[in-house]
């Protein structure tokens, strides 16, 4: 039996979670292999919810599969595709199937995804979503009606430490903490000096949560440049791009693993934050290698 993520958060250990990105398919073979490969190596498997507004196999379905296979799922839920009623009933279902962790996100805009003509919902925002879960735990749904049965979640949220400008992002971050977020997963970070400055600010806030640094595996210089140009709040320093460029074509992935591992080791040894969340984006099979090289 896997240790509940909430207990891991309460401990002093360095926390490690990994991301599972469901496919646009009912063929779940590869994803299931990744789940089996990682479930005993990390503290939680965090499943994306129609990530980048691209329609895929659901986060909720994947979390049930993880649970069935003995892993500890973290259910990502965005505000983009469901109104408050649908979010609430999905949470009831998730709880009834043994899912105990939820990561709340606003969600990317519909326009960046593969269903550009779809109607975006955003009935709630991430702060209201966290508060809604806390209210449901106290026995009331968002309509003010009595809710029967047990209901309790370990709730996480997101922050982008390199958002530009950072000040409005920090105000929103504080609201998420005040609303009751217990853990925070960051957008991908690469510049640890900047991250350290962000953590110094976060550690000064009134409400605290465990903070997991987002580690996105780089697989080529092109990918790094693409992220710098297209992913808000992500900045891969030129030094990493040069390192990837200098590697032979066949060794680029190896170089990416080395960079990720170096980041994780420095974060852990320097106690920069409480843990890491590893996003391998399609290369989940190399996550054990990253963990090994990081000394985890």
């Amino acid at each position, binding site marked *: 039996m896997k240790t509940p993520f909430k207990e891991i958060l309460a401990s002093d250990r360095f926390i490690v979670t990994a991301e599972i990105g469901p496919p646009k398919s009912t063929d779940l073979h590869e994803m299931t292999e990744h789940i089996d490969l990682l479930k005993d190596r990390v503290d939680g498997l965090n499943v994306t919810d129609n990530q980048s507004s691209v329609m895929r196999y659901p986060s909720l379905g994947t979390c049930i599969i993880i649970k069935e296979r003995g892993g500890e799922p973290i259910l990502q839920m965005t505000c983009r595709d469901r109104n408050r009623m649908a979010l609430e009933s999905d949470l009831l279902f998730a709880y009834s199937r043994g899912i105990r962790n939820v990561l709340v996100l606003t969600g990317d805009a519909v326009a960046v995804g593969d269903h550009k003509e779809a109607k975006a919902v*955003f009935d709630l925002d991430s702060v209201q979503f966290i508060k809604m879960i806390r209210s449901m735990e106290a026995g009331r749904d*968002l309509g003010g009606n009595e809710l029967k049965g047990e209901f309790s979640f370990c709730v996480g949220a997101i*922050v982008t430490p390199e958002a530009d400008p950072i000040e409005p*992002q920090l105000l929103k971050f504080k609201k998420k903490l005040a609303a009751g977020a217990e853990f925070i997963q960051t957008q991908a970070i690469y510049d640890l000096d900047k991250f350290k400055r962000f953590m110094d600010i976060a550690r000064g806030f009134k409400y605290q949560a465990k903070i997991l640094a987002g580690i996105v595996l780089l697989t080529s210089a092109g990918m790094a440049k693409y992220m710098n140009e297209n992913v808000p709040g992500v900045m891969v320093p030129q030094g990493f791009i040069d390192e990837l460029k200098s590697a032979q074509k066949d060794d680029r992935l190896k170089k990416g693993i080395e960079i990720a591992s170096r980041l994780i080791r420095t974060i852990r040894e320097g106690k920069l934050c409480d843990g890491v969340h590893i996003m391998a984006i399609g290369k989940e099979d190399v996550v054990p290698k990253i963990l090994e090289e990081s000394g985890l």
Partner: protein
Amino acid sequence: MKTITKEKEFAEIEKRIKDARNIYIIGCGTCATLCKTGGKGEVLKMKEKLQNLGKKVTGWMVVPTACDILTKEAVEAEAETIKAADLILVMTCGFGVQRVADHAGKLVVPALDTLFIGKEDEVQTEFSQVCAQCGECVLGLTAGICPITSCHKGLINGPCGGTNRGKCEVDKEKDCAWTLIYNRLKELNRLDLMEECQSPKNYQKVLKPGKASFKQ
């Protein structure tokens, strides 16, 4: 304040009028004239396009303000030529189309798409949507910049993670509403307003369809 319209693709108009032989055209002298979508020039161009398709234009007019009740009188004055038409092609916003439809007793076909109600810049060349008429005004918390309208996701508790150098994740040219709100609140020394946690919106306040009565 103007109702902003955009001309439909002609192929769509063509499809809607394919069974009609005789067509009457109505434009609007106010917003659609300003948008260059339904003024006299556009109406005459449309007339020519329809004639090139072999249609007969039984008549046309540009009413002063299509949404106004006076449009009823204009339509009645043109009753004969309208009667001779199979349908009316209306080059106005959705308000105008419905006003015409209420009084003309004919099938109406809109030639325009109605986009939003816009606030003009100082020289009236650019219009922006600044109010979405949401029924629950939050401008007192946001230094007069509406996040329901100006934030792509309509967020009311601060920015999403998509802010990029102060711009929106869906359009690098579009300002992030929450960056603007933050900057203005900071100038006014009222950032405390942004720290307040805002409850979910009450969509019951958005009457659909909206109706108001001012009878004494």
